[in-house]
């Protein structure tokens, strides 16, 4: 017996394994699109989407937004005088008022239009190794930085490249006018960049004082002060981890963009900007008229879902209603053409 058993086993040595996988018996599910599932499904999706859409739309509507163009193209604009390319250290002042409380926390952006930060050869023109604090790249920046690699005396630019070179350098001060007197609105510039940028991607070289790391290098062509002196008020906010620098280096995806400048969170303004008159003092340095660009400042508050975005809510509403409409259409079609077998 034993022998025959063994023989049988040997004989069937080539027999394929009997598993669900090899025999293609793995459970599969191909739903029948029966009316009982599809039509109620559509109604539920539709209703849910309409709900989300309404919520989004209402939220978006509740967001306050204030945009002020200060390019100075029109002669009436207070910044008109500064738009002249020859003007140096030009200051201009913009006044505006709010009727109601501008609910806090208020975000303060600057915005640029027709500005192609997403142009490829502009975008690649930087040296990530240098920006992460590699001192070798201080002396010889990567050739991706061309043409902002070395100056005429063959000294390396630090930070090199077109992106860093074109750092936005307008500065703003905000005052509330209370009884004709200007009251400074404190602006908070901490933590406006991405956490990863601040902590990982951009690093200052481990040299103290920081200035020494920059020996033998020159500041970028368009900069008025070197990287280690970007923020005179806070020594820790200098070099490559300067918040404004970080915000600028994170390139915008579209040619019309805004970037976060400051947040208004402190003191009397923690609840927001009270109704009243305000004055915005602008140090106008950044030329944009040559490429028909526009500059503006934007005040906005945010909701749980981010900034003002009406499109998303509307899209949800549209899709939701379409689903409901389709469910009705399908119901009609189904009633007319259903399978005879089901009767």
């Amino acid at each position: 017996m034993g022998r025959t058993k063994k023989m049988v086993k040997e004989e069937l040595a080539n027999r394929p394994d009997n598993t669900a996988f090899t025999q293609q018996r793995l459970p599969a599910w191909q739903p029948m699109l029966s009316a009982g599932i599809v039509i109620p499904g559509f109604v539920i999706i539709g209703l849910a989407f309409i709900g989300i859409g309404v919520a989004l739309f209402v939220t978006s509507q509740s967001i306050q937004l204030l945009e002020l163009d200060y390019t100075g193209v029109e002669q009436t604009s207070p910044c008109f005088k500064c738009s002249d390319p020859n003007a140096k250290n030009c200051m201009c002042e913009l006044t505006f008022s709010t009727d109601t409380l501008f609910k806090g926390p208020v975000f303060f952006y600057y915005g640029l239009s027709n500005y192609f930060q997403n142009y490829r050869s502009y975008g690649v023109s930087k040296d990530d190794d240098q920006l992460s604090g590699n001192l070798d790249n201080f002396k010889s920046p990567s050739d991706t930085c061309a043409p902002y690699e070395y100056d005429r005396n063959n000294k390396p630019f630090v930070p090199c490249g077109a992106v860093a070179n074109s750092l936005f350098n307008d500065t703003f001060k905000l005052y509330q006018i209370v009884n004709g007197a200007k009251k400074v609105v404190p602006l908070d510039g901490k933590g406006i960049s991405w956490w990863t940028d601040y902590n990982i991607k951009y690093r200052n070289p481990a040299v103290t004082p920081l200035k020494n790391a920059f020996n033998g290098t020159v500041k970028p062509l368009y900069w008025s002060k070197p990287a280690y002196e970007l923020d005179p008020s806070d020594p820790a906010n200098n070099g490559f981890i300067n918040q404004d620098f970080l915000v600028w280096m994170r390139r915008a995806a579209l040619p019309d963009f805004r970037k976060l400048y400051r947040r208004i969170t402190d003191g009397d303004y923690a609840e927001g900007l009270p109704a009243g008159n305000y004055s915005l003092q602008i140090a106008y340095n950044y030329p944009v008229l040559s490429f028909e660009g526009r500059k503006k400042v934007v005040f906005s508050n945010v909701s749980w879902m981010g900034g003002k975005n009406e499109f998303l809510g509307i899209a949800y509403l549209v899709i939701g209603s379409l689903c409901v409409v389709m469910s009705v259409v399908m119901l009609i079609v189904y009633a007319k053409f259903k399978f005879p077998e089901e009767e």
Partner: protein
Amino acid sequence: MAFWRRNTHIEKERHVKANARDYNDKFSYADNRIKTSKYNIFTFLPINLFEQFQRVANAYFLVLLILQVIPEISSLSWFTTIVPLVLVLVITAVKDATDDYFRHKSDQQVNNRQSQVLIRGSLQNEKWMNVRVGDIIRLENNQFVAADILLLCSSEPYGLCYIETAELDGETNLKVRQALTVTSDLKDITKLMDFDGEVICEPPNNKLDKFTGTLYWRDNKYPLDNEKMLLRGCVLRNTEWCFGMVIFAGLQTKLMQNCGRTTFKRTSIDKLMNTLVLWIFAFLICMGVILAIGNTIWVSWIGRNFQVFLPGEEFQSNAVFSGFLTFWSYIIILNTVVPISLYVSVEVLRLGHSYFINWDQKMFCRQTNTAAEARTTTLNEELGQVEFIFSDKTGTLTQNIMVFSKCSINGQTYGDVYNEFDEKVEITEKTACVDFSFNPLCDKAFKFYDGSLIEAIKLEDLAVQEFFRLLALCHTVMPEEKSEGHLVYLAQSPDEGALVTAARNFGFVFRARTPETITLCEMGRAVTYQLLAILDFNNVRKRMSVIVRNPQGQIKLYCKGADTIIFDRLDPSSEALMYTTSEHLNEFAGEGLRTLALAYKDLDEDDFEVWMKKLLFASTVIENREDQLAVLYEEIEQGLKLLGATAIEDKLQEGVPETIACLNLADIKIWVLTGDKLETAMNIGYSCNMLRDDMNEVFVISGHTLLEVQQQLRSAKEHILGLSRVSSVGDVEKTDMFADDSVFEEAIIAEYALVINGHSLAHALEPQLEHILLDLACLCKTVICCRVTPLQKAQVVELVKRHKRAVTLAIGDGANDVSMIKTAHIGVGISGQEGMQAVLASDYSFAQFRYLQRLLLVHGRWSYFRMCNFLCYFFYKNFAFTLVHFWYGFFCGFSAQIGLDKHYWTAVNHLFIWGSLTVYFAILFAMQSNGIFGIFPSNFPFVGTARNCLSEKSVWLVILLTTVVCVVPGLVVSFLRVDLFPTLTDKVRHLQQSRKKEGPQEQNLRRVRRTSSRRSAYAFSHQQGYGELITSGKNMKMSTVSSAGSPGRTPHSSTWIENMLKRKNEQVYFKTI
């Protein structure tokens, strides 16, 4: 191989001298080494790479890679291309290398087989590859012939030897070869050593049935033909040993010359994919041009003003140049629309499908322990598209086993099994078979289920005894008794073997024969009959008889043959029995059995003497001997007494009729191409249910000239078309009538069948007739071609392939099917049997015909579905991914800035088969992780992107929205389509679902029933029997001496070989090429 051929001059004539290596070396003939491999270690890399870069896709990506190295253009880092490219190259190379390794191994195995070569006066063992042209080699029984050799002598008398040519032409019966008389005496080594004959013969060619040459020896010339040649691939049988001289070796042997070049088979999806890729490439160029123009415009209108913050150089040169560079940048960035990974993924997918085929237990054959095997991995989805199947008969549809299944003796049928209620019981494996233990000489493999026959034997029923005595005496089978009681019958046709084996088991054991006697063991008693004459079978007579004198001294004639022939020659006293037997024959034929009628006659001593004298006289006549003999035979085979009839089952492979019916339902046309006789083929056609009596007409085309064939084809076609539209035709001209018949193909409801023989087929395949043939064949439901050569099989397949644009599949088991297997889109070999030629040439192999159903209808369908779904998804994915960049181009000044990070996408693309979003996100975060950034700051600049994006709630809301927007329209469309335009599948599924709700239901299984009228086929054997050979005594080893003195035989026997070989030549001509 090709190089070697180019170098040699074209051989016009071959000179070979025996035992003279130096002389033969002058001609630099091919040695006996065969080489089917493509590479060796050193040539592998260059040749393989060269081959791979000939593929358009690989070349395209090489160009892309070069483009990416240019920094002004490159928008992506070069390793996004090199990684997949190298992956593709490596995978393909590994596959090629393993294939070639196995080819090397099989070559080596063949080359290293041992053979005995006569070198310097002694026999030495040599490897096959060292055998040279002109060598004399010794072969032993059951050995493969090492090269094409000229038979010099053998252990058998007269230099006879027997070979089996299954590897060459698929025929399993034995064939006789005979050496020249002058050389047949060279039986010892010293004589062979001195043999220095020179053969001058034709150059190597691929004709298996032809050889012309001359042997020059001792100032004499001897003509040589194919009957003196043993070809490589044959097996020596029934012959202890033989010596031969090598004429053609290695690649120049006829077998190797017949191995058609394997063509690379492509599927229609491949072709579609290539066209698609070309179109997509054109589309890519279009996009590139549009974006380049966009860039030019952008630069001259907007970009110029933006110089302040941008590197100056680019804008100083002109905008057109910038556009030009942008074009190339976009070619790179948008390259994913022409997906290289598509080719890899498709290959991987097909490989997976092949494994599913290999793994399928439903295609595993228990008996032979063979699983199905997908030998080619690239054709799976084509299986679902097959429209024509060309099938071999012997060994494919049938098992080539003849089984004695029923008989009718003296008006009584035996063979059916009845249960206690007198109902016929279907015979299955479980049915108890008759116990033959009373008979020590019985064949254990023989099975019979009806016990009443054995009872009749035991009751010593005279008719039954005579019946089996006839079966034991009237045949040309040779017995071989290896040990006491262990009998083996060497039959020339399996039918005869089956009949003699039946007689053996029922107690009439055919034990031994000499030229004059036949010894039987009748129910345990040894009885010797004196054999007086064998009246052999031929195609005209369709019967054979023996005349014997039994121990009691009576002379008897036993005759078996086709029923119609026998019934014409019956004694009036048998008339009543004839009617009952005739009824039984109808019954047998209805079950698809092959029938024979048996009859005997008592002869008067004096009459016989007179007749015998006439016979002896006739057999010495030189002119018209055949005819005279036939007349004499006719004279004595009169007034026979009917004994009964036998029914032999040509056993079909399991489940053949069901499979054919099922494939017919799937609108797949099955053509049977067989080398067998017309009758046999038709018989099988009926038993497979391919031919039926309720068919309107079965056209048999058997013309001998072109005109005749044309006539027959025309009239058959007119018959079909005429019937189908009697009203519409009328005065329309005939040419018009044939012009547009494809429209009417569908309309013809009536069922027709076409049977055509090889002779007619040769004419019908000529260019002027092939269209008619094809049209007619496609109008018929069943097409059977018989007596076709391997080449004709391939021609038929080629014909359909060329004109029908349908996917064809050829299935066969023997070497004679190789050409058709290679020609068809898909070749299937039946494995698990002895010959491996067909399997080696095939794309798929399995053990039984019925697995074809599962292969085509399940695996083929699934493969096709999956492949199509995959392609749809793949193109969709690539377009979705790539067109984003097109869109984004309008926002970034057409600067070829990428909007998505390529680094993880490449990985995701390849790992998506593991498929889960988990992997996706893991990679997403890994690639943008702080750690990786710390190591390669400039290569992974996207650190934190994912984290910051995904922490935005609106991003998730957008993802949800887009998902729904993408899915919902699809759902709506498919829901509405099911309701408005339901496909067959939808209906079936609906039905299934509603059935399920109703609960289990009895299913009506359609049973395939055979309905057919009586077709008594004397499908006796392929060729004329060995009757003459037996009576001449030439093939009797021991008894030749004793029989030599027999009077009257000598003149007869002097010419028998000539006759036989002559006839055989005619036969063989039809069978081989």
